[in-house]
């Protein structure tokens, strides 16, 4: 037995890591009975049937974190950024926010009406929409409220809690400009109203210039159908704009000459300022980054080599630089950006680091191709006022104690 396991590094690692269920696994017979008579190599190692749609190994526990306001009609979930690698978020771990539950829609029944200031109003089935030319693009999607709990003081323990309302997928669909061109725009057209088919029919106003630029009516995510919570079967994608504008379960687009000042754009997703003013129509999710490893909730295993790695993204363009400080902002070093580096997309950065075992604070700062640089909290307060909530782009500090324990601390 000992000899055999030594030939199986994977198995040995599981045992060393003390995975609680490994003993149970060795003696478990239930799955073996259900699946096959052919044993895995080595005594007691079972084989499993991974079904028609693969799911993560039972040892892989990476999960979203769910949160609801009230009885669950308004709620969402956070992406476990600290447990993920690369720049794409698996669809099942993509964050989501819904304002009146996640509807269960039959794509055969679903239709999109496009009307208003157009020459020829049309209704489209999903089949119709999928016949138009397609594009596939990698884009991040971030909730305007990502990190809103962090505004006044650090609260989240992990990168999932502080930054988990951003995710990145490859989205496929028809460019919205193709559809608008199909209908013919009238001269005074300047805005679109996008309406979802959730219970409360969430609406947002979208500037026409964005619709004619890079907006997509998306039906596929990472190659497969959108997940229900991502708007199955159809969502609007306005790359780089706040998540709420990327209306899910899209049922209607109306072309108009003014914005509608809908509930969600004039209250919840607007930003009250200290001087009684309200900042509104702030579409862009601006230049931002976070170190995902090592990060809050982790513990370093003594001094030595560690790779610092994280994500940077910007709704206004392409990330051109990420700098990392391992001495509480005293000095900065440029991290490597890992390809692909795409506009309005998560970008993975990496930097080798040797920890000397002393208490310190690590942080990252991103720059995009418009020259925008990620601000500190002090700088952000100056721009937005100290009682904001939405569009928190400030630099994230992770404090490393002598014990190696990492906490969210910006003192």
């Amino acid at each position, binding site marked *: 037995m000992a000899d055999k396991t030594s030939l199986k590094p994977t198995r040995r690692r599981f045992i060393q890591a003390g995975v609680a269920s490994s003993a149970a696994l060795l003696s478990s017979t239930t799955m073996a009975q259900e699946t096959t008579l052919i044993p895995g190599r080595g005594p007691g190692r079972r084989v499993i049937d991974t079904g028609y749609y693969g799911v993560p190994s039972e040892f892989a526990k990476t999960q979203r974190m769910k949160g609801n306001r009230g009885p669950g009609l308004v709620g969402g979930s956070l992406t476990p950024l600290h447990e993920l690698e690369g720049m794409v978020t698996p669809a099942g771990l993509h964050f989501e926010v819904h304002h009146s539950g996640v509807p269960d829609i039959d794509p055969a029944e679903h239709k999109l009406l496009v009307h208003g200031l157009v020459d020829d109003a049309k209704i489209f089935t999903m089949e119709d929409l999928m016949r138009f030319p397609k594009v596939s693009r990698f884009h991040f999607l971030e909730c305007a409220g990502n990190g809103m709990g962090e505004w006044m003081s650090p609260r989240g323990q992990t990168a999932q809690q502080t930054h988990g309302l951003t995710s990145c997928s490859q989205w496929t669909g028809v460019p919205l400009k193709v559809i608008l061109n199909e209908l013919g725009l009238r001269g005074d057209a300047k805005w679109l109203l996008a309406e979802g088919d959730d219970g409360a029919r969430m609406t947002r106003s979208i500037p026409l210039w964005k619709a004619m630029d890079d907006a997509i009516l998306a039906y596929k995510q990472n190659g497969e159908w959108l997940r229900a919570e991502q708007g199955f079967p159809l969502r609007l994608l306005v790359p780089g704009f706040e998540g709420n504008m990327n209306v899910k379960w899209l049922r209607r687009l109306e072309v108009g000459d003014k914005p509608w000042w809908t509930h969600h754009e004039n209250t919840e997703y*607007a930003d009250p300022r200290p001087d009684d003013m309200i900042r509104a129509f702030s579409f862009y999710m601006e230049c931002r980054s976070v170190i995902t490893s090592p990060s809050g909730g982790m513990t370093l295993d003594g001094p030595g080599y560690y790779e610092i790695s994280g994500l940077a993204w910007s709704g206004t363009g392409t990330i051109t630089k990420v700098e990392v400080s391992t001495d509480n902002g005293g000095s900065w070093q440029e991290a490597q950006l890992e390809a692909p580096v795409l506009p309005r997309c998560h970008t993975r950065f990496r930097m080798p680091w040797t920890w000397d075992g002393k208490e310190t604070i690590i942080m990252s700062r991103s720059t995009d191709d418009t020259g925008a640089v990620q601000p500190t909290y002090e700088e952000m307060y100056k721009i937005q006022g100290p009682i904001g909530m939405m569009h928190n782009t400030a630099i994230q500090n992770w404090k490393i104690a002598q014990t190696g324990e990492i906490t969210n601390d910006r003192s």
Partner: protein
Amino acid sequence: MTVHKTKLVKFVSTCALAGLLIGCSEADTGAEPEAAMAQEMPAEAAAPDMKYGFGTSVGADIIAQYDGDIHIDGTGLPSGSGNVALGREIYEIQCAICHGENLEGVREMGAQTMHEGRRDIKKLPYAESLFDFVRRSMPLTDPGTLSNDETYGLVAFLLVETGVMEDPELTLDADSLKAINMPNRDKFIIDPASGFTAEELEGK
């Protein structure tokens, strides 16, 4: 176009190889502009003025079945009317369970106060969009069930309860609702990055 295509191919191949073999580090910085193009290419490939003929043209009757929104100039406001008393009655039966007896919000039901902060009714720019939201989205457990009269009544009730309107017997219909000037209307700062000025977004 052709130039872009060559670059695209080059980017894909260097990156795929480098990505597999050496972790794709050196190639990256040089590849940025190509990468950007890789995302823009397909849309350009679609002929800009092509009409495909997919979808079904519809007239006013079908549109009316789908469209229920109110524009800030009042377009879409339906006929009918309702007063504060009607609004209060509906509110107590259908809304107070979540929004509280005095609009203070019931946390466990996910609703927040409508007297201050982000959900402050006084701070809304247009009474039209309040009507629009209530009729389309509320009550959250059964949206789309309020009649036009009930919605006018509820809007009258909400505006009086939050001190925007004074008359405790206020009755609203399309014309009187359109005539309301919300007190916070001029307190919105429009993000210049939106490409619009405050005046361009005015409804009336």
